[in-house]
């Protein structure tokens, strides 16, 4: 590899040819400020339109300042990253950006987490010298994501995520000059577009232009209503990230403190989505074995591979883009919706409470879950199985609002019975986890022998597309794993072309899986945070006394008492769903976006 040597702020550095000045500077500890630039190293995601000009540096011998994120380091370059000229220009640029940005920091959802705000602080900006016309756009409220484009700074990060990473292609820059803005085609609402609500645009937006639809107010009202019994479920990935909102190191597990905080907030029952993940494995694993056995017996009507169906953004993606493949995903509902169905039927009956008086709240790492809960098929007589979905971030707001000192809380347990879960369910939170959980159960049900080793290292990792072959006592089971919808698209195209070699495929929409969900604490471009969360998930799995879904005693009891057996009529009615062709229909799907404040 050819190397080049350059000097940055009097420090000499040697870097491979092709390295940008920005990266070379970081190597010698010079952190050049950036705004539009974003690089997620181990996910191979990069956004560098060179548009904001915040990262300008002075290069000796060049007349103009150069944006360091798109300028290649060359041999003998002499660079100043903080000369008076650079500092003054950089300040002017930030002031100009601020001159067309609403000064609403006090009430902005992104306050405290906004890259532009941090930059203004770093630049020491105390007064704005420019004023002029401001961009005004209509607010776009979807069930999951709110677009407030007055705040958009045209960094194009969301466009990179939506087009290059997710290949959803809903967002694009439109118009030109001062009028340019990122928008769906024909400036339609997100709700009417093919948006999957994966929320990766929200995860990377540096400002408050893209945010989740906040439902904390509605949850507070439910909690303060004495007529309601309020039940909460928490998704696996939340416990591996919530601590970050309270200043804890990334990768700190806060399961016990989270349960304690939810109890302090006044939830009547603190349950766990993990229990429903175990239930998902029972249904999905059984479905996999059923399809597999029929396939092996020569039944040509059987569809293989089977695809996991836990991720609502991924489900919406296939509905919009691959309507001919709707019989390929497992019909099992997602854990969130299985939980809702069991809570509003089995548990409501047990408590002898009308389902309309039972409020189910989910804490999710995800914004698409807000959309999923509102799908028509997940409601009975207009009463949704899941009433409200809060993201990990919204839960942290609620905890702060309630004056709970999170870090000093004792570790508490979930309530029973719907708080009982296994290690298999915890790993649902990371890419590779759902399929590993399914394999743990399917292996034992198929071979009728105990697993020699519970952990499947071959299914783990961070590469966007992975595959592994698991030996099912002589039967080689081919497994594919994709995270990020762009990677998922590749596997789907193989299936559509009849070239897929897999028996089972796990798909998660977000890079890293749910740990990198659009509702998680902001990673601010530091992808090592996702790795730490992933390690935390595996750590939680190792700590669990039971690590296979089919050994969860409450799951056993639930089938005995209520459901019969996996894929029974009752299980089908409550725990399975169907998919809809949305390829041409851009109509609203009856999402309860207007019903937020009821209940």
């Amino acid at each position: 590899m050819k190397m080049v040597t350059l000097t940055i702020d009097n420090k000499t550095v040697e870097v491979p040819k092709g390295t940008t000045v920005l990266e070379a500077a970081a190597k010698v500890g010079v952190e050049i400020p950036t705004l539009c630039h974003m690089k997620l190293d181990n996910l191979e995601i990069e956004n560098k339109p060179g548009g904001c000009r915040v990262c300008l540096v002075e290069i000796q011998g060049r007349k103009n300042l150069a944006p360091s994120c798109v300028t290649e380091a060359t041999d003998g370059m002499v660079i100043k990253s903080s000369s008076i000229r650079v500092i003054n220009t950089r300040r002017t640029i930030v002031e100009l950006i601020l001159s067309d940005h609403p000064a609403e920091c006090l009430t902005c959802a992104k306050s405290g987490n906004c890259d532009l705000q941090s930059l203004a602080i770093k630049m020491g900006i105390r007064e704005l010298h420019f004023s002029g016309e401001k961009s005004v756009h209509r607010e776009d409220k979807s069930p999951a994501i709110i677009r407030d484009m007055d705040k958009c700074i045209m960094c194009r990060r969301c466009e990179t995520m939506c087009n290059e990473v997710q290949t959803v292609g809903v967002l694009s820059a439109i118009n030109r000059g001062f009028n340019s803005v990122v928008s769906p085609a024909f400036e339609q609402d997100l709700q009417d577009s093919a948006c999957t609500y994966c929320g990766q645009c929200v995860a990377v937006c540096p400002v408050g232009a893209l945010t989740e639809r906040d439902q904390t107010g509605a949850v507070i009202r439910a909690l303060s209503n004495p007529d309601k019994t309020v039940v909460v479920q928490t998704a696996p990935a939340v416990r591996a990230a919530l601590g970050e909102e309270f200043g804890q190191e990334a990768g700190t597990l806060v399961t016990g403190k989270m349960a304690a905080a939810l109890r302090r907030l006044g939830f009547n029952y603190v349950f766990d989505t993990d229990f429903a993940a175990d239930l998902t494995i029972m249904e999905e694993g059984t479905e996999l074995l059923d399809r597999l056995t029929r396939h092996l017996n020569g039944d040509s009507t059987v569809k293989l591979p089977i695809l996991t169906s836990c991720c609502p953004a991924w489900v919406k993606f296939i509905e919009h883009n691959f309507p001919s493949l709707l019989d390929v995903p497992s019909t099992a509902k997602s854990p969130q919706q299985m939980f809702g169905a069991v809570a509003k039927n089995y548990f409501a009956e047990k408590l002898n409470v009308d389902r309309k008086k039972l409020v189910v709240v989910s804490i999710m790492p995800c914004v698409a879950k807000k959309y999923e809960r509102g799908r028509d098929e997940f409601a009975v007589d207009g009463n949704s199985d899941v009433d409200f979905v809060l993201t990990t971030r919204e839960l942290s707001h609620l905890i702060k609002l309630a004056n709970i000192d999170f870090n000093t809380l004792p570790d508490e347990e979930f309530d029973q019975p719907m708080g009982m879960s296994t290690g298999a369910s915890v790993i649902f939170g990371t890419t590779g986890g759902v399929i590993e959980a399914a394999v743990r159960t399917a292996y034992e049900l198929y071979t009728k022998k105990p697993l020699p080793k519970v952990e499947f290292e071959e299914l783990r990792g961070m590469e966007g597309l992975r595959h592994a072959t698991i030996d099912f006592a002589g039967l080689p089971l081919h497994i594919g794993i994709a995270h990020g919808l762009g990677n998922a698209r590749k596997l789907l195209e193989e299936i559509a072309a009849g070239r897929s070699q897999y028996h089972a495929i796990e798909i998660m929409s977000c890079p890293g899986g749910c740990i990198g969900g659009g509702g998680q604490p902001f990673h601010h471009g530091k992808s090592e945070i996702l790795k730490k969360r992933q390690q935390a998930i595996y750590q939680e799995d190792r700590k669990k006394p039971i690590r296979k879904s089919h050994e969860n005693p409450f799951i056993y009891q639930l089938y005995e008492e209520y459901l019969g057996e996996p894929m029974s009529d009752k299980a089908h009615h409550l725990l399975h769903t169907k998919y809809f062709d949305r390829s041409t229909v851009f109509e609203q799907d009856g999402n309860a976006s207007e019903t937020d404040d009821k209940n």
Partner: protein
Amino acid sequence: MEITRDLKNHKVQLSENAIALVKKICRRFNYEEGELINILHAVQSQFGYLPAEIQELIAKELDISVAKVYGVVTFYSFFTMKPKGKYPISLCMGTACYVRGAENILNEIKRQLNIDEGETTPDGLFSLSSLRCVGACGLAPVLMVGEKVYGRVAQADVRKIISEYKAGCPTHPSKE
């Protein structure tokens, strides 16, 4: 050509011929994403404008997102999503016309037709745009309807000119 407009719902119905023509243009450019601007240019020259349905069709043919096509259409001022009226009115706002009261004429047309610049009347008869100098400064202020030039237009003439066209095209009466 070959576009049926549902004026109430702002939707258009593309005829089979129209669809075939758009597909043919895309094929001519080898369905290459890099040729998007040329494709849009060729299609607009056939249809006069680029309604949403045509943009969707082009996106599908080139296997790119509609948002991207729309992004390009809105970036270049040459492309338009609004059909021109049957009688496109262009008013010269060049220096000579401007000083001789073109702005009053413009306002009068807006008032008479109840549309703004860049818009088309709901009946599809008239559209209004302004341009910079048609090279007939001696006749200022100048107004054009289609290819026909009206010179030394006074505010009071506007109503008369419009009503002529409402009654049928004065230059091509046989076509009505």
